[in-house]
């Protein structure tokens, strides 16, 4: 297991730069959630936010050396998929479970 002290400096810099980039992209997606002309635009933007948050989870696992956050990213991916399918069915049919 890679300990935190043995990580080279350029990898540490790359991980933190990727975290900043992913956080800014997640913030930028909220423009389409608020401003999007139709409901599917908002759903697509929320799906993109979910994928970005999965990437943030894995990057946090790399930054802190705690591998548990990879599993948290996977669970967030599952939740994002289920919510996308649920909203798609709700928009078409008006109810989800009948």
């Amino acid at each position, binding site marked *: *297991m*890679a*300990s935190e002290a*043995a*990580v*080279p400096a*350029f*990898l540490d810099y*790359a*991980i933190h*730069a*990727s975290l900043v*980039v*992913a956080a800014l*992209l997640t913030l*930028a*997606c909220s*423009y*389409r959630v608020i401003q999007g002309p*139709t*409901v*599917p*635009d908002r*759903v*697509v*933007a929320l*799906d*993109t936010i979910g*994928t*970005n948050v*999965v*990437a943030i989870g*894995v*990057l946090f*696992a*790399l930054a802190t050396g705690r*591998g*548990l956050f*990879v*599993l948290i*990213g*996977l669970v967030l*991916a*599952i939740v*994002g*998929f289920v919510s*996308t*399918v649920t*909203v*798609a*069915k709700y*928009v*078409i049919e008006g109810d989800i479970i009948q």
Partner: protein
Amino acid sequence: MNTLTAAVVTALLVVGSVFLTIGTLGLLRLPDVYNRMHATSKATTLGAASIFLAGFVYFGPSGEGLTSLVGIVFLFLTTPTGAHMISRSAQKMGVEFFGNADWPEDDD
């Protein structure tokens, strides 16, 4: 952790960040919900899969690295499915194409 592994992880992180940026710019800039879905469902999935692959290289082939591989398989299976369902619901809601494109004739 040796320098070669760190270089591979750094390259995968750079590739993943670039793909995430391309996908989000496509979400913000393209004119149509179908075009935006095209941008996000391909580029953002590739970016997140590249970052998962960086996690696999970092944590090694057992434990959390194996979880990263499962995450890659899950993303590649579910993101096209979700995008297809959303585009189908957008068609049923009557969202029009940008420009003069049109749906093909329904056979059923």
